């Protein structure tokens, strides 16, 4: 977990002038982290639902705060996702940092610090530690958006930070309440396992649940807490956007599973109807607005709001398929969005514009780039055979067995997805070449190498998702069982 931090330290001592060394060191670090993570995945015991690879050190004993980390299946999948994305982002955005406000070196230090925190936030089993990382990771992202973005980057960075901080403070209030109650009941602690044993009245539970949920809903983002996302994503550099949407926003949905459901099972049930409606609104609202966008990065951001609606729907449908689907969806969404953003970023930097209609006829001029974008789009609209289809299908099936109406309405989201992806694809890639596009260069070797693993993951998981599902399923079944739900329909395990 601390490996990226070491890398950051190494990068920080490298001379400022030698930008190439900084990049190489950063890339090497992310690859090393990925290898370690793969090692962990291989040694992970699938049937064991408790936390694994547990490490615990006293941090502030007088408050009962520990530096405690451990990994369950959900966390494992998300950490794997983060560590795969990190090297891709470094490689794909090789020249991204040059237009920034500060040096290239700073960019990579920030990226590596952020990677440490991404791993930490998923691995933390101490609520206090989680909160600390949850808040602290805002700072590098803030500087990444504000320092290396484009357009209204400062304003977008501030909007992002304010939204997140307000959400975080609400969560802090709930955490303090949990802490004090644990003190009354069995001694101060922040351990997630122990806190889930707390007895509390349903009013208290509802209030505390809301504190956590709103923080996560802002992060995720769920309608109506989403307004910061399009600005932030549109202003950030493509690599930052990938990390922002692909990983950071997952912290929100991850938090819903890990904290909202485990700590407040009763309240989760109470609020399920409301949250499901919000989720469905997110799906449709994100999709509709995506159709209307002219700016390609904002378009992708709105598609993500729609996708996050699906994830939230899956989580709160309270069925094991829904859950497995949601977790798998988080994983897949990261890669389809990464593909979209990275290719869009290359298109934008070549063309110098981010308006969809400026990209006419790219297919003829730059076939590889155009096809990659098309492919990423197809993955985003969940074409069967690509990974998103599996997860979207699972979520919808899982929801349908309990809440058929919601599921049916959500299905319209898929239809809309076809519209919001295919219309820009048609406008941009096909058709007559927009003047000025004749001399654009196609993807170079480095970019091809960066996009290849993403494409590979999307295809492989589209046809053969069971390795991941095997990891995810025991955990989600366990969560559902703890919540006191049983699946209404025959289960859909291990095909």
């Amino acid at each position, binding site marked *: 977990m601390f490996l990226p931090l070491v890398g950051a330290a190494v990068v920080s001592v490298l001379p400022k002038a030698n930008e190439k060394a900084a990049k190489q060191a950063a890339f090497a670090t992310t690859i090393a982290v990925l290898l370690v993570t793969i090692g962990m995945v291989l040694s992970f015991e699938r049937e064991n639902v408790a936390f694994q690879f547990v490490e615990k050190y*006293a*941090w*502030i*004993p*007088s*408050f009962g705060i520990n530096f405690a980390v451990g990994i369950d299946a959900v966390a494992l999948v998300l950490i794997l996702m983060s560590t795969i994305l990190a090297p891709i982002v470094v490689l794909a955005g090789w020249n991204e940092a040059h237009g920034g*406000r500060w040096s290239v070196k700073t960019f990579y230090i920030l990226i590596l610090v952020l990677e440490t925190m991404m791993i930490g936030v998923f691995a933390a089993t101490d609520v206090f530690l989680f*909160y*600390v*990382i949850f*808040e*602290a990771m*805002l*700072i590098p992202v803030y*500087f990444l958006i*504000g*320092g290396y973005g484009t357009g209204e*980057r*400062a304003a977008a*960075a*501030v909007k992002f*930070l*304010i939204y997140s*901080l*307000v959400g975080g*403070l*609400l969560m*802090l*209030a709930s955490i*303090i*309440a949990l*802490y*004090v109650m644990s*003190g009354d009941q069995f001694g101060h602690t922040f351990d997630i396992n122990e806190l889930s044993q707390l007895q509390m009245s349903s009013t208290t539970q509802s209030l505390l649940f809301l504190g956590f949920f709103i923080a996560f809903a802002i992060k995720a983002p769920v309608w109506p807490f989403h307004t910061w996302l399009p600005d932030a994503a549109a202003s950030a550099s493509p690599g930052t956007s990938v990390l922002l949407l692909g990983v950071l926003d997952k912290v929100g949905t991850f938090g819903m599973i890990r904290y909202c459901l485990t700590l407040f099972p009763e309240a989760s049930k109470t609020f399920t109807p409301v949250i499901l409606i919000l989720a469905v609104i997110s799906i449709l609202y994100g999709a509709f607005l995506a159709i209307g966008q002219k700016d390609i990065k904002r378009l992708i951001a709105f598609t993500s709001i729609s996708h996050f609606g699906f994830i939230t729907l899956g989580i709160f449908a309270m069925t094991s398929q829904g859950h497995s689907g949601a977790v798998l969806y988080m994983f897949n969404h990261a890669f389809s969005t990464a593909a979209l953003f990275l290719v869009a970023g290359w298109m934008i930097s070549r063309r110098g514009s981010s308006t969809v209609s400026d990209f006419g006829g790219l297919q003829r001029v730059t076939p590889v780039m155009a096809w990659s974008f098309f492919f990423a789009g197809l993955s985003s609209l969940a074409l069967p055979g690509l990974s998103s289809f599996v997860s979207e299908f699972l979520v919808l099936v899982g929801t349908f067995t309990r809440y058929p109406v919601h599921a049916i309405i959500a299905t319209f989201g898929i239809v809309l997805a076809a519209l919001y992806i295919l219309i820009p694809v048609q406008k941009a890639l096909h058709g007559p070449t927009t003047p000025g596009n004749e001399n654009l260069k196609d993807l170079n070797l480095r970019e091809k190498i960066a996009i290849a693993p993403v494409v590979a993951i999307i295809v492989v998981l589209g046809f053969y998702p069971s390795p991941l599902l095997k990891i995810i399923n025991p955990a989600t079944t366990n969560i559902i069982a703890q919540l006191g739900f049983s699946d209404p329909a025959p289960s859909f395990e291990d095909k």
Partner: protein
Amino acid sequence: MTFTSPVLSYTLLSPMLILLGGALIGVLVEAFVSKAKRAVVQLTLALGVLSLALFQVWNIRGEQSISPAMGSIIIDGPAVLLQGSILIISIIAILLIADTEHFTALPAALPGSEEEREAIAMGAQVTEVYPLTLFAVAGMLMFPVAGDLITLFVALEMLSLPLYLMAGLSRRRRLASQESALKYFLLGSFSSAFFLFGAAYLYGFSGSLDFAGIQASVVGGGGNDVLLLIGMAFLSIGLLFKVGAVPFHSWAPDVYQGAPTPVTAFMAAATKVAAFGAMLRIYYTVFANAQWSWSPMLTGIAVITMLLGSLVAATQRDVKRMLAYSSIAHAGFLLTGVIALNKAGLDATIFYLFAYGVATVGAFAVVTLVRDSSGEVTDLNRWKGLGKRSPFAASTFAFFLLAFAGIPLTSGFIGKFSIFSAAYESGATGLVLVAILSSALAAFFYIRVIVLMFFSDATEDGTSVEMPSILTRSTIVVSAAITLVLGVYPTPLIDFISELAIFIR
């Protein structure tokens, strides 16, 4: 009538005695040492005295006594902690004060007069500032350990009088500085009068001036409650004035802005520790049994202090005024800890005081670096693009602001967390919610400043960042290091505080 000679425990009193002695020697140095050597001698003396006092405080940690000076002074765990905090903050601050650039050459001269020009040409310096500081520190040390109302009042005046003077010593914008000194003096005397008035009523209520006697009457009941209430209210006004709580805050922005920045730093940080130290002792021991009558009042004051401080800070255009309002908001957070009235609240308040004091000195130290040809630049608009001009100044300032905002991995977060959880534990849920709301408001304007420094383009208007002298630089570095360490690994200090922080009764 027979006269009993007082029995004094010199060891326990030694930190205060050392400082007073040092201050007196400082006055002699002014008289006898040649002008050229004076500054160096004074600085060495002041640092030596402060360190020696700190060493003595360390030696007497663990001691407990209610009668080191015939009941006028109480030495116990919290006393040691507060005195230690004040001394550490003063040591950091005196390094900043040592940058004589900030002080006028001849305080007695009228601004802009012939005399002043001559004094500047002669290279005169106000080295009096060192003994003044030492006197103020001595008063601050006595304030939280006072055992009766008279000692408390003497300590209050002892810390205030030098500060009134020091506020008027600014080299630049002398009129504003003198105006601030006068304002501080007038309002300060006014609040002292309130304080005395309250003390008189408390005497009327209990027939005693020392804390033990008053406490006994409060616990025993039977006295005239009206006298108690009036006395308590007026005494509180005197104390709340010193910490700058709303509605007794109106002096703070003007004085913070007008005073020389190093003095502002010292005043903002150390006075707060001293005044809150005294408040802790009074509310946690003397008035603890009358909680029903002061807690609602203080809650109301805490709420408006936090909200008003945060809201008004957001509208400020001047960095020193902004920090002043932010310190008002912090006074509100600290009051939350006083209201909690439990062990956790005591620990948390002491921790917060130390953490906040150190960060405050650091932040003001950065303010002294940003200058143009006519002195410090405090207009926020001219701080634009500071990140490019001086990454050192901008990033340390940003770090202190993040600490004020209570972002994790800074001491401010640990402080806020512990104070809020203590207040929540005492059942003041509403207060905690208000505190969290105003933290969010406050975060907004701290971030605005960070945006200005890093994401706005600089305008060319002659604003520059002086590369600091080694002393100022060490102030900044030490403050930043303490802020970071307390944010990442506060355990040793927290344990130390919670072990010691028990009032003797």
